């Protein structure tokens, strides 16, 4: 079936075998937006977090058919030139190590900010996993947002 999605402000048409393909794999394999990561596939780690109508959603278990008609924002569309305050804070605090989880972290942070959270209350909203253990710098980065 052919579906049209709103991804990063653009209409994107994809053809899938059925509507149950998770949004994660549509983004990565069909649209080439590889900034969104696969970590666990069971909604635990959060590496696949994107914004759907402004809310952080784990895209590994979100049927693509249910994302039709909603505004999807991925790390690639978070800001032009990495200018989102969270991205700037991540650079200033030298947060990433391997970096694999950080797209999901940043999208979760962006969602929390959009919901009106500030400072430490942002990091309280973010419960994604980071095996490198960058949580301390994540909290420091969030504390100034």
């Amino acid at each position, binding site marked *: 079936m052919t579906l049209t999605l709103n991804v990063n402000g653009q209409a994107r048409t994809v053809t899938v*075998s059925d509507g149950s*393909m*998770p949004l994660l*794999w549509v983004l*990565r*394999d*069909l649209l*080439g*937006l*590889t*900034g*969104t*990561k*696969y*970590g*666990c*596939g*069971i*909604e*635990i*780690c959060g*590496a696949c977090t994107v914004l759907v109508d402004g809310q952080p959603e*784990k895209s590994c278990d979100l049927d693509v058919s249910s994302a039709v008609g909603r505004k999807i924002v*991925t*790390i*690639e569309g*978070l*800001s032009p030139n*990495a200018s989102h305050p969270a*991205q700037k804070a*991540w*650079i200033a605090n*030298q*947060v*990433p*190590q*391997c*970096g*694999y*989880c*950080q*797209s999901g972290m*940043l999208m979760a942070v962006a969602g929390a900010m959009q919901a009106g959270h500030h400072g430490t209350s942002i*990091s*309280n909203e*973010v*419960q*994604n*996993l*980071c*095996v*490198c*253990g*960058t*949580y*301390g*710098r*994540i*909290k420091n980065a969030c504390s100034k947002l």
Partner: protein
Amino acid sequence: MQTLTKETMDRRSFLGGAVSGLTLAFFLPEFNRMGELDAATGGTAVNSWLQIGADESITLTIGSSEMGQGSFSGLAQVLAEDLMVDYARVTTVQGGPTLVSPAPVGTSINTVGSGVIRGNFWKMRDAAAAAREMLVQAAMTSAGDTARTNFTVANGIITHTPDGKTWTYGSVALAASALPLPTVVPLVPDAQFRLIGKTMPRFDIPHKVDGSAIYGLDIRVPNMVYAVIKHCPSFGGTLAKTPVAPAGYQVVPTKVMAGTNRGLEAVGNVNAVAVVGPNTWDTWQKAKQLSVSWTLPANAAQLNDAQFLADAKALAANATPYAVGAANGPGTLYTVEGNAATANAAIAGASKVVDATYTLPYVSHACMEVLNCTVDYVPGVKCEVWAPTQSAKSVMSLAVALTSLPSDKILVHTTYLGGGLGRKAEVDFVSQAIQVAMVVGKPVKLMWPREEDFSRDQYRPMALVHAKAGLTASGQVLGWSYRNISPSILGQRGAVLGPTGDSQGSEGSQALPYNFGTRLTEYVTHPSQIPVGFWRSVGASINTFAVESMVDELAVAAGQDGYTFRRGLLTDPRWIAVLDAAAKMGWNTPLAAGHYRGIAIGTAFNSIVAEVVEISSVTATGLKVNSVSIAMDCYLAVNPGQIDAQLTGGMVHGLNAALYGRQSFVNGAAQSKNFNKSRMIRPSEMPQVSVTLIPNPGASDRKKVIGGVGELGVPTFAPALANAYYAATKTRVRALPFFPNATMSD
């Protein structure tokens, strides 16, 4: 002075996109997986390049891998110091064996053993200084002045002081390339360091906040198909019958190759099938639905935790000593140091004896990025491999073996690694991807679903440690006896163990600067053939838990606190300084009611590290880690901010393993297959961390051994936690993890 090579035009033209200018090729030895300098340096092998372009570019091409440890930027920092240029001018490029023509298969490109900075520090400085002096020589020729003292260099500008005339590096790069390599290369004196020892930002971080960093799983090649691996659930199992492929899909059996065989996974075993299809998700669904018939190993019923523990206990009591010329099979007892008779006599004569047995489970690596590899194979033409690998060298060797192509037709691209942790030094996943690509005739990206990544790991070895020590009535240690029974990592890689056994198995347990009176350290090869491998900090993560828990038990027996007891027992001033630094941060400060502390010290990769862990809220199912104070002496700190990040991250790795890390087996099949049964802390559970680095005594002494950093946060966490737990509960945790049944949900 190291072996430097000035590049010929032939080599330079092979570099393709390289700009004209000065190119120096050199060999960064790094460290091989045995933890020793690689012998294959030859005089011609190169794996790294420094290029000074006529266009003012400065490019450093590095063969090692970036998996989060920040060593690319660290090397650039060292380079910029002695090249006397602005750090931001250096561009680092990921290299690989293919940049060498012809590619020497023996060239070491491994990223293991916390080795990139400590192994390459002097090589990088020498190369940078040689390039700088060649550029100055070219400027001297241009000026017609042969007095070097009439020239100064600052910020990439050469100045002829008598007349103030200046040259940029780019303007003399071509002329410099015609000059001979200098024989004397003065390095920047320590007192003039602008960069070494300073916290500098990493180059890779901007790419890791906007989604543009390309990891292995992000590789996309035109006309690529997707393969999803499905292994036999049990180690040692083999394919009974090739299943019929679903319509529109292919099923490709894959076998174990020489170099990827580990324990039960013998060379030639067809232990997996790859399902090949049009995208990851649809292919993965077909792989899940595919019914595959496997033949389990004959001893499958014995491949479980209870049997492994029973075998270990038997060997704690009785093991056959190593003998020259004997088979020395599994269960052999190796004497690492000391003498059994003297140690036992000393302990027998003591007024107090402490006897304790510690056990550790198998632990998975759980890198955030699952194993994956992309291969474009064109028969007779090329085999191009993209892999998140810690060992481009092994990838190259394997590709040669599988394809029979000459090495100059094999291209290896090392991508960013979404964590390596030792697991990505193995190449089993690369082997599978090449095998599948050779069958399907199209470029293939092969992925291990998370469940396969957990189930088919090469785990941190399980271990049982029996320790015994005797003390006088006043608390002086008279004798120490320590036996670690653990599957051999090196043995599973074909090493024939000598009289002292597996160096990886005993690391962290020997040559400890404690005044133990007389001591005995033994290592016994546990017979389990579940695949084991290098897990961040390797043997140190096992032995430091047992040693430092035992030392704490001795402190209790001696009636002293953990810090004071260690302080009296340590004989090495560097260890004492590290212990004192940790205590200054976390041991001597006031303690809130209901809070408890533990301390531990240890060594790995030539660094010394101590941690103080403070906990509260201890219950049967959990506890809260409030703060961790980490002190380290790595002799030389290139980038303190990155060292802080690595020590903190390593500590979290040790914390996750200590509290929750366990892989269990039933019939040879792993039982924890995803994060739901492999709990880790989340951001809200992060303790406060403080780090102290023992002040750098100066970088000018080549005879001093530089210590590693990347794995050092791990080993002392678990014992410091166990010691804090004892302080809180008067109960000694001798079996890891603390909370084996913890789970995690969304």
